[in-house]
C-alpha cells in the first residue's frame, strides 16, 4: 500500500492558514458588514480552546485507570447537559434529571457497546479511542435529545385539547400523548438521518477527512465512518427515547391529569 504518511503542519503553515481569517475580516470591514470583530473573537476563541484541548488530551490520554476515564466522561456529559439546559427556551419540569439520566444511560450504554464489543481493542477504556468516540456520540445525542425535549414541550402545549379529549375517552397518558411523542422522536432523529443520507455525496465527514489526511487508507477510514455513524444513530435514538419516555410523564400529575400550563 502506498502510504504517504502525515504532512506535519508547521507554525508557518498555520500562520498562512490564518491569513484566510484575516481576509474574511478585511472583507467585512471594507464592505461595512460589521462582522469583523465577531470573526476575530470567534477565531481567537477557537485557537485558545483547541490548544487547551490539545494539551488536555495529551494529559488525558496518559490516564490508564478506568475510574478516572469514567469521571472524565461524566464531566463531559455534565458540560453538555449545562449547554443544553441553558439553550432550551422552556424546560420541562425536572429537565436536568430527565436529560442527565437519559444522556448517561443512552450515550454511556451505546459507547460501551461500541468500544467493548464492536471495536474491541483492549483495554476497552483506552482513552485515546474512548474519549473522542464518546464525545462524538454525546454531541449528537445531546442535540437529538434537546430537539426531542423542545418539540415535546411545544407539542404538549399545542395539543392540550387533544390530550384532554383522549384522557376523557379513557386513554392512558401514554396513549394521550402518542402523536406528540411520535413527532418529538422524529424531530430528534431528522438531523442524524439527513447527515447519513447525504454522507459521501454532499459531505465527507470530518473524522474521515481527518483520517485520510493523516494517511489512513480511504477504505479503512470509510469502514470506521460507517461504524461510527451506526453508533451515533444508536446513541441519538436511545437517548431521545429514554428522554421522551421519562419526559412525557412530567407533564402529568400522579392522578394522570395534564398539568396546568402555569404549574409545569
Amino acid at each position, binding site marked *: 500500500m502506498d502510504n504517504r504518511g502525515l504532512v506535519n503542519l508547521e507554525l508557518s503553515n498555520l500562520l498562512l492558514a490564518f491569513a484566510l481569517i484575516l481576509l474574511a475580516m478585511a472583507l467585512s470591514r471594507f464592505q461595512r458588514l460589521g462582522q469583523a470583530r465577531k470573526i476575530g473573537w470567534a477565531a481567537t476563541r477557537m485557537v485558545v480552546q483547541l490548544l487547551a484541548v490539545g494539551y488536555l488530551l495529551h494529559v488525558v490520554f496518559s490516564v490508564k485507570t478506568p475510574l478516572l476515564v469514567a469521571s472524565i466522561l461524566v464531566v463531559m456529559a455534565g458540560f453538555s447537559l449545562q449547554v443544553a439546559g441553558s439553550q432550551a427556551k422552556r424546560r420541562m419540569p425536572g429537565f436536568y434529571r430527565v436529560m442527565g439520566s437519559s444522556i448517561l444511560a443512552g450515550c454511556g450504554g451505546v459507547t460501551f457497546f461500541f468500544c467493548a464489543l464492536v471495536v474491541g481493542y483492549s483495554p476497552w477504556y483506552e482513552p485515546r479511542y474512548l474519549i473522542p468516540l464518546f464525545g462524538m456520540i454525546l454531541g449528537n445525542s445531546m442535540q437529538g435529545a434537546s430537539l426531542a425535549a423542545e418539540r415535546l414541550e411545544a407539542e404538549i402545549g399545542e395539543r392540550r*385539547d*387533544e390530550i*384532554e*379529549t*383522549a*384522557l*376523557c*375517552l*379513557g*386513554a*392512558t397518558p401514554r*396513549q394521550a400523548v402518542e402523536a406528540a411523542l411520535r413527532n418529538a422522536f422524529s424531530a430528534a432523529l431528522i438531523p442524524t438521518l439527513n447527515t447519513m443520507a447525504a454522507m459521501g455525496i454532499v459531505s465527507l465527514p470530518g473524522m474521515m477527512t481527518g483520517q485520510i489526511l493523516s494517511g489512513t487508507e480511504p477504505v479503512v477510514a470509510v469502514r470506521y465512518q460507517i461504524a461510527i455513524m451506526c453508533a451515533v444513530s444508536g446513541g441519538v435514538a436511545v437517548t431521545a427515547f429514554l428522554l421522551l419516555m421519562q419526559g412525557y410523564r412530567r407533564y402529568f400529575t400522579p*392522578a*394522570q*391529569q*395534564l398539568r396546568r400550563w402555569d404549574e409545569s
Partner: protein
Amino acid sequence: MAEKTSHDDRPTVQVEGIGLTRPDRQGLEAVILDKVSFSAAKGRITAIVGPSGGGKSSLIRLINRLDDPTAGRILLDGVDIAGLDPLLLRRKVAMVLQRPFMFPGTLLHNLQRPLVYRKEPVPTAESPVVRRTLELARLTPDLLERDARSLSVGQQQRASLARAVITSPPILLLDEPTSALDRPTGDQLAAALQDICRQQEMAVILVTHDLRLAGRIADDLIYLEAGRIREAGPAAEVLAEPASAEFKRFLAEPEEKE
C-alpha cells in the same frame, strides 16, 4: 341493549362540600368553587347553568378527575373517587369537552378510539354498536368514511357525543355542548342527548349558559354563580318560580352567547 331496569333511587354521583382554590396571578388563593353539593341520578339530565367564570367548567372537570378539588369529596355509587384509579374512573365517566376535538382520520376511526384505548376489539362500520350510536347521535352511516375534520361543527359536536357514549358509560359529562351551534343544530344535539340519557340510563351532567337548552332537556337544574350554588331543584320548578335573587337576575338578563 338491556331492557330498562328498575330505578335505583340512590344518586349515582354525589358531590359533597366541594371547594376549589387556585393561586391567581398575584399568588393569592382565588376561590373558584365554595361548598358545592349536589347529586345526579341515572336516567336524568342535570344542567349546571350560570354566568361564565362562575366555576361551571371547573366543577365538572372534577367529576372525572381532570382536576382534583381542594376540599370536599365526590362519590360515585357511594365510593369516593379520590380513591379510584383515574383511568378506570374516566372509563366510567365519559366527558365531552367544550371544543370538539376530532382526531386525524375518519369518523369511524374517531368512534373506534375509546375501544383502542381499552385494547378491546374495534367495531366495524357495520357493527350494531356503531349503527346504534350513530342513530342516537343523529348522524348518518355515510359520514363514517368521511374525514372527521371535514364534518360541520354541528356534526363534529354530535360525533364527539357519539364517541363518548359508544362504550355505554354510566355517567356522561358535557361542557357547553351547544356553545358553537346555531339553534336548529343545537336542538338536534339536545334531542340526541335526551335519547341517549333515557335509553342508556345514564346520569348526564351538563354545563351550559344556554337557558333554553336547560329548560328543554334538563330534569334537574343547578344555578352556579361566583363559585356557589344559588339555586337548585327540578328544572321545571326553579325555572318557573326562582327563589334566589341571583337566579332571578340571571333569568331576566341571560348572557349573550360567547
